[in-house]
C-alpha cells in the first residue's frame, strides 16, 4: 500500500529530548497559563467542598441570619434560608466539576473509541456508524440533553449521562479525522507487516497520533458541560435542591436579587470564571499543540 504523502502531516515521532514539554510550552502561553491557574483554583475549591471543609454546612439553614449581606461572619452573605453562600459556592464547585469531568470522561472515552474504531475499520461499517452519529447532530444540543433528562429523570448522575450522550458523537467525529489520515501512513503498514494485531495497532500506534485535537476538544467539552449543567440546574432539571449548584443558586436569586444582589453576583461569577478558565486553557492548548492556527489569534 503506497503511502499518501499529500495528507496533512502528523508528526510520527516527536523528539521529546529537544522540544520542551507541553506543560512548559503551555506555561509560556499567556491564555493557557491564566486558564490553568483558574482551573487549579476551582479544583481546590471543589476538593475542599467534597471533603466537607466549607466554613459552614452548605445546606444548614440559619433562620436568624436570612439574606445577610457579605460580612466577616458570612464572607459571601447568606441566602433566603440563611445558608452560607461561600459554602454553597464551594459545594457547588464540587458538583459542577464532578458533572463536567465525569461526563467528559465518559463521552471522551466512548466517542474516541467509536470514532477511531469506525475510521480504522472503514468501509460500510464506518458509513453506518457515522450516519448514526448524524442523527444526534440533528438535535440542538440543549434539546437532546432535555430529552434525555425527560427519559431518565432529574439529578446529578442523570445530568452526567445527558451531557455524555450529547458529546459522544462530537468526540467520535474529532477522533475519526486524524485516524483516517494516520492509518494510511507507512508506520502503520509496517506494523501490520510485522504481524501486529489490529487492536494493538489501533491503541499503540494510531490513537497516540490523534491526541492533539482530542485534548483541545476535551477542554472545550469541559467548558460546555459546565455551562449545560448550570443551565439544566437553572431550569430545575439538573442538580436537585437542597444540593447546591451554581445554576440553582442563580435561578433562586431571581426576584430577590434587587434586595440581595450577592445572591446573583457570586454564582454568576463562579459559572463565568469556570467557563472562561476552560476556554482559555483550550485556546492555549490549541496554540501549543497546533501551531499552524496560531498566526490568526
Amino acid at each position: 500500500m503506497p503511502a499518501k504523502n499529500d495528507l496533512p502531516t502528523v508528526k510520527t515521532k516527536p523528539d521529546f529530548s529537544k522540544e520542551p514539554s507541553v506543560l512548559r510550552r503551555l506555561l509560556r502561553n499567556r491564555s493557557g497559563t491564566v486558564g490553568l491557574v483558574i482551573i487549579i483554583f476551582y479544583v481546590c475549591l471543589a476538593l475542599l467542598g467534597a471533603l466537607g471543609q466549607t466554613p459552614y454546612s452548605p445546606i444548614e439553614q440559619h433562620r436568624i441570619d436570612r439574606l445577610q449581606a457579605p460580612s466577616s461572619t458570612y464572607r459571601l452573605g447568606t441566602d433566603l434560608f440563611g445558608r452560607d453562600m461561600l459554602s454553597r459556592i464551594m459545594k457547588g464547585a464540587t458538583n459542577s466539576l464532578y458533572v463536567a469531568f465525569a461526563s467528559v470522561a465518559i463521552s471522551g472515552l466512548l466517542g474516541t473509541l467509536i470514532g477511531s474504531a469506525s475510521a480504522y475499520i472503514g468501509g460500510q461499517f464506518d458509513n453506518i456508524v457515522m450516519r448514526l452519529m448524524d442523527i444526534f447532530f440533528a438535535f440542538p444540543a440543549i434539546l437532546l440533553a432535555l430529552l434525555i433528562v425527560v427519559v431518565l429523570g432529574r439529578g446529578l448522575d442523570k445530568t452526567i449521562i445527558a451531557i455524555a450522550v450529547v458529546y459522544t458523537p462530537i468526540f467520535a467525529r474529532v477522533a475519526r479525522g486524524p485516524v483516517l489520515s494516520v492509518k494510511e501512513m507507512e508506520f502503520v503498514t509496517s506494523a501490520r507487516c510485522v504481524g501486529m494485531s489490529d487492536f494493538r495497532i489501533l491503541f499503540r500506534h494510531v490513537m497516540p497520533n490523534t491526541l492533539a485535537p482530542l485534548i483541545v476538544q476535551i477542554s472545550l467539552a469541559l467548558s460546555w458541560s459546565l455551562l449545560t449543567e448550570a443551565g439544566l440546574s437553572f431550569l430545575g432539571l439538573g442538580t436537585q435542591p437542597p444540593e447546591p449548584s451554581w445554576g440553582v443558586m442563580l435561578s433562586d436569586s431571581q426576584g430577590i436579587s434587587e434586595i440581595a444582589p450577592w445572591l446573583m453576583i457570586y454564582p454568576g461569577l463562579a459559572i463565568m470564571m469556570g467557563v472562561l478558565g476552560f476556554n482559555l486553557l483550550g485556546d492555549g492548548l490549541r496554540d501549543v499543540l497546533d501551531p499552524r492556527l496560531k498566526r490568526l489569534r
Partner: protein
Amino acid sequence: MLRYLIQRFIAVIPILIGVSLLVFFAIRLVPGDAITTMLGTEAGMLTDTQRAALERYFGLDKPAGVQYVNWLGDVVQGDLGYSVRHGKPVLDLILDRFPVTVELAIMSLVIALVIGISIGTLSAVMHNSLIDLGGRLFALIGLAAPNFLIGTLLIYVLSVYFGILPNAGNYVELNEDPVENFNQLIFPALTLGFSFSASVMRTTRSAMLEVLGEDYVRTAHSKGLRPRTVIFRHALRNAMIPVVTLAGVELGYLLGGSVIVENIFALPGLGRLTLNAISQRDYALIQGATLFIAINFVIINLLVDMIYAVLDPRISYASKK
C-alpha cells in the same frame, strides 16, 4: 451544483427517519405505561375495561414497530397527536407559539450580527491595538457568560436602575400592538444577541485578519483606494462567508426556541412550551415539540449548506462526494 444540492437533500431523509425513531422510542423508555403518563393521577380511577379500551383506542395494544409506523403515518399528515393537558392538538399548540420564537430569533440575530461584525472588523483592522484588546476581552466574556446569567443581570439592572420590569405582563402579539410587542421582545433579544455576538466577533475578526493579509487587498491599497473602501468593499465581503455559516447554524438553534431565555422573560414561545410540557409530563407534547424542533434544525442546516454552496463559488462540490 444542482447535483450536489439534490444529493444533500436526499441525504437528509435517512437522518429525519432516524430522528423520528429516536424521539418515538425515547418517549417509550419513560418509566410507567402510556395511559398513566397521559392521564396522570386520574389514571388510578380507571377500571381494567376502561384501560383496555383506551389502549385499543390509542393503538397501544399493537407491537411497538406497528405503533411507530402508524405514528409516522400520522406525523407525515401533520397530526402530531393530542395534548391532554391543553385539550388541543399538539401541532396547533406548536404553531401558535412558533411566531414568538421566530420573531425573537430574527431580532436576536440582527443584534448579534450588528454588534459582532462591527467589533470584529474594528478589532481586525486595528490589530494588536488597545481597541483590539478590548474587543477580544468582550468576546472572551461573552463566550463565558451563559445567556441565563446575562438575562438575570439585565433584569436586575433594568429594575434597580431604570425601574422597568421587562418580564411582567401578558404577551402582546405583533399585529395587536407593534410597539408593545417590540418592548416585550427587545430585552430577551438583547440577551440572546449579546450572547451570540461574541462568536460572531471572533469569527469576523479571524476571517478579516486572514483576508487583510491577501494579495488582492494589498493590490487594492497600492492602487490608492481609500482604506475605508478597501475594508468594506474588498475585505469585509470576503470575510463574511464564515460569518454567514455561523449565523445560519445559530438561527437553527434559535428557531428551536431558547428554553432558558424565554423562561426568564416569560415569553410564550416554543422553548417555554417544551419546558412546561416537560415539567407537566405532557409526553405527547414533548414528543411533538422535540420532533418539530429537530426537523426545523435539520432543514435550516440544509439550507445553510445550500446557501454556502451558492455564496462561495471557490468550493467545487463536483469532486467532493
